[in-house]
């Protein structure tokens, strides 16, 4: 598919990288010639230098044959305008990055309609939602939902004192009464799709599928669930901090934002009446102690400086804060931070890249998008996809144990219409209208039938 990415900042570059590895024909567009030169050196893409809201530049990038146009510059208005122009010049789908809270209320749907946007992307909001999930389950690395929260997937790193270490999966499953599935294990650099005889070790990163209710019980019985989060401290008053506070406020959590800039503080306090805004430097030892670092349940570092986020988070971990999450934009730093023992790391880029990858695959399929959701997890080595089952699919009507499924593929769950999700057993039969959650490693799925050999 022909995809144009306008605006090649952090988000744009992450999207380019993801879409190129998906095999799409990508054209990058940016005002700076240096950025374009650099990108065309690294990726197999075409570069166009110019203003993305200018029709001549768009024409040079062959907008007429473009399937998806993504505007990801730093300015919302430019993104909207260029999407509008791109759409009227023949782009089939347009995606605009719109992140200002002012646009992200009721006016968004009106705007999307008027501008004929296929999707409005708000990386900060997406990140805030992810952060919220992470804070809720403090021991998880990553929490994702399928089918409107009917099924949950979490990623957990096993510590040496965990009850699961040294046990075979068949035994674990026999012991616990909840319905769950350990779908994948990442040990070192190798990804395993485990069977009943697989023995878990300390340090393994495992992913668990279960319905939300069962997940809570399971985590409780495994001693992985700590007390509910009541007090959250956020360093840095960014847009993400704003969205996160707003979500947390609806669940009755006490939120405290520490921000350096007085003007930003004042603006935040206007729009977030239930949140405590502190004007102070989040990297100051005294400020943190004064605001009660040792008595909070969760600490989230969201400043624009990766290094500051890493350091303050490590500091917070020293005080045994149950949940610590740092936003890190630079991937290299993420690896270093994880080596230093920082558990929760999150980045805006990967969230956005995941969403666009899913969107591109859905558009490619174009049969009304079979893929409902797509998550990359296990360090990007595996994908979890949710498919809607069509009546003409080849998997319909055969018990799962009789299907010839390729290596590296696991059917994790089936959601029957109107029912709650269930973990798959070999006797289940997939029917049209169901939603199926599939875990795939080493294979790129764009249709449910792709899972068959």
């Amino acid at each position, binding site marked *: 598919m022909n995809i144009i990415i306008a605006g090649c900042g952090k988000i744009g570059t992450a999207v380019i990288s993801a879409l190129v590895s998906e095999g799409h*024909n990508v*054209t990058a567009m940016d005002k700076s*010639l240096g950025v374009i030169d650099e990108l065309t*050196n*690294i*990726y*197999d*893409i*075409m570069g166009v230098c110019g203003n993305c809201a200018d029709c001549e530049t768009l024409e040079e990038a062959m907008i007429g044959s473009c399937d998806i146009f993504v505007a990801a510059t730093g300015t919302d208005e430019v993104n909207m305008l260029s999407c509008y122009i791109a759409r009227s010049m023949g782009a089939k789908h347009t995606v605009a990055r719109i992140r200002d809270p002012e646009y992200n209320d009721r006016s968004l749907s009106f705007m999307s309609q008027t501008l004929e946007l296929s999707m409005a992307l708000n990386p900060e909001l997406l990140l805030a939602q992810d952060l919220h999930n992470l804070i809720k389950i403090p021991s998880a690395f990553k929490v994702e939902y399928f089918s409107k929260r009917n099924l949950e997937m979490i990623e957990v790193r096993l510590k040496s004192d965990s009850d699961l270490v040294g046990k075979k999966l068949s035994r674990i499953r026999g012991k616990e009464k909840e319905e769950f599935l350990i779908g994948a294990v990442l040990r070192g650099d190798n990804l395993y799709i485990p069977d009943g005889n697989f023995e878990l070790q300390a340090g393994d990163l495992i992913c668990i599928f279960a319905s939300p209710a069962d997940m809570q019980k399971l985590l409780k019985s495994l001693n992985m669930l700590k007390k509910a989060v009541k007090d959250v401290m956020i360093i840095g008053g960014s847009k993400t901090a704003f969205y996160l506070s707003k979500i947390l406020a609806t669940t009755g959590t006490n939120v405290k934002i520490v921000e350096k800039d007085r003007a930003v503080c004042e603006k935040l306090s206007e729009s977030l009446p239930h949140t405590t805004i502190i004007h102070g430097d989040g990297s100051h030892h005294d400020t943190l102690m004064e605001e009660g670092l040792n008595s909070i349940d969760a600490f989230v570092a969201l400043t624009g400086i990766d290094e500051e986020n890493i350091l303050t988070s490590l500091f917070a971990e020293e005080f045994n804060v149950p949940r610590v999450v740092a936003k890190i934009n630079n991937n290299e730093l993420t690896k270093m931070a994880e080596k230093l023992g920082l558990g929760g790391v999150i980045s805006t880029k990967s969230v956005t890249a995941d969403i666009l990858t899913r969107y591109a695959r859905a558009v490619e399929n174009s049969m009304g998008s079979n893929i409902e959701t797509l998550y990359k997890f296990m360090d990007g080595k595996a994908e979890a996809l949710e498919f809607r089952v069509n009546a003409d699919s080849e998997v319909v009507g055969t018990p799962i144990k009789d299907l010839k499924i390729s290596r590296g593929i696991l059917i994790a769950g089936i959601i029957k219409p109107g029912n709650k999700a269930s973990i798959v057993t070999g006797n289940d039969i997939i029917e049209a209208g169901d939603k199926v959650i599939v875990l795939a490693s080493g294979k790129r799925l764009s249709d449910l039938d792709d899972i068959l050999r």
Partner: protein
Amino acid sequence: MNRRMVLYTVGTAVKIEAALLLLPAACALIYKENSLKAILISAAICLAAGFALTLVSRPGNKVIYAREGFITVALAWIALSAFGALPFYISGEIPSYIDAFFETVSGFTTTGSSILTDIEAMSKGLLFWRSFTHWIGGMGVLVFIMAVIPSLSDRNMHLLRAEVPGPIVGKLVPRIRHTARILYIIYVVMTVIEIILLIIGRMPVFEAVVHAFGTAGTGGFGVKSDSIAGYSPYLQWVITVFMLLFGINFNLYYLLLIRRFKSVFKSSELWVYFGIVASSTAAITANIAASYESFSTAFRASAFQVVSIITTTGYATTDFDRWPVFSKMILLTLMFVGACAGSTGGGFKIARIIILAKTVKRELKKLLHPRSVSALKFEGKALSESTVSSVSSYLSIYVFLFFAVLVLLCFESFDLETNISAVAACFNNIGPGFGAVGPTLSFAEYSPFAKLLLSLAMLLGRLEIYPLFIALSPSTWTKK
């Protein structure tokens, strides 16, 4: 440096050469010639060497950087020439290996300088291979590999940039593989059209194919010792027009295909190219008209020669060495101008000349208005300062190398005109020069040392100096 990836790519190129040798083998088979054996043995050697190289260097890490790109291209071209010389040497039709190497380098670099004194005595299979090297070298071997072999590396852009001539190398479409394919499709289609037009003009099929290869790669190897002189005016005009067409930037053909006519007609390089051809033809026609029986003959001869030299092809319809000094000087100047960037032609390239002229104009303006700021634009786009300075430094290294080769060549016992034109003809990938290396004579008289030196000059010219320079500099190979 990723040595394994470099060797692997070179090995792949040699394997491809083995496959390409099957075409001249088929030709030798059709004409039932003895050269078939020599060609097949060479193909087997290429295949064995290619497999050996790719097996020892199976790369784990496929990432390459600009440096690997340059070195791969340089080594691949040297290896292809070394192996490509085998058929001539093994068959015994060119007894000296250095002569065979010179002839092959001259083929791949689309120069067309020859050491053969009696072309018509060669077997058809080898003549086919000799011209086919022009065709392969014209668009580039690695571009061909990119078009046919999926995902050699993720960063093939470095290879493309090192192999395709011109100051600015861009892609036509996002994927490099598709870009390479489009380029080759245009190339093949134009070659086929020329073959058909030549056959319509009653040229024998074999000669039509060989001459089309020579024209397409802007090479200049023929099958007759008097080059194109013996053919009818129609055939000469067909070759003139196609030489002119193959000297145009191939990106423009793609723009025509996708119906962006406006951008084609706005291309300043195209108009400068046509302008130089038209004015040089007019000047030479006026200068030589008196010595020809009719105006049309003089016009045809001068048009053919101007186009042949500026596109760096090197075909001849007349012994231009006997023309007046003024006409010869124009031709010598055109040797340095060269064809458009992104074409199959060699030389300094018109794009660079335009950029240089604009730089000079800007410098003059700066002398008058020291505070003036002016951006340089080329083909409607502002040029980055790094492109401008790279063009200037290319000029310096180009001039410097030209004189270095010339000084070394003057150990030979030829007059200055011969030596200057020989270096100019090889360095700019043209073919024949003046004096003792004129269109009716050959490079056979030079010593083996001079032949190797001129081979190097041809490679430097075709690859635009830097790749070879980087590959040969010791600091590239020592670990820091």
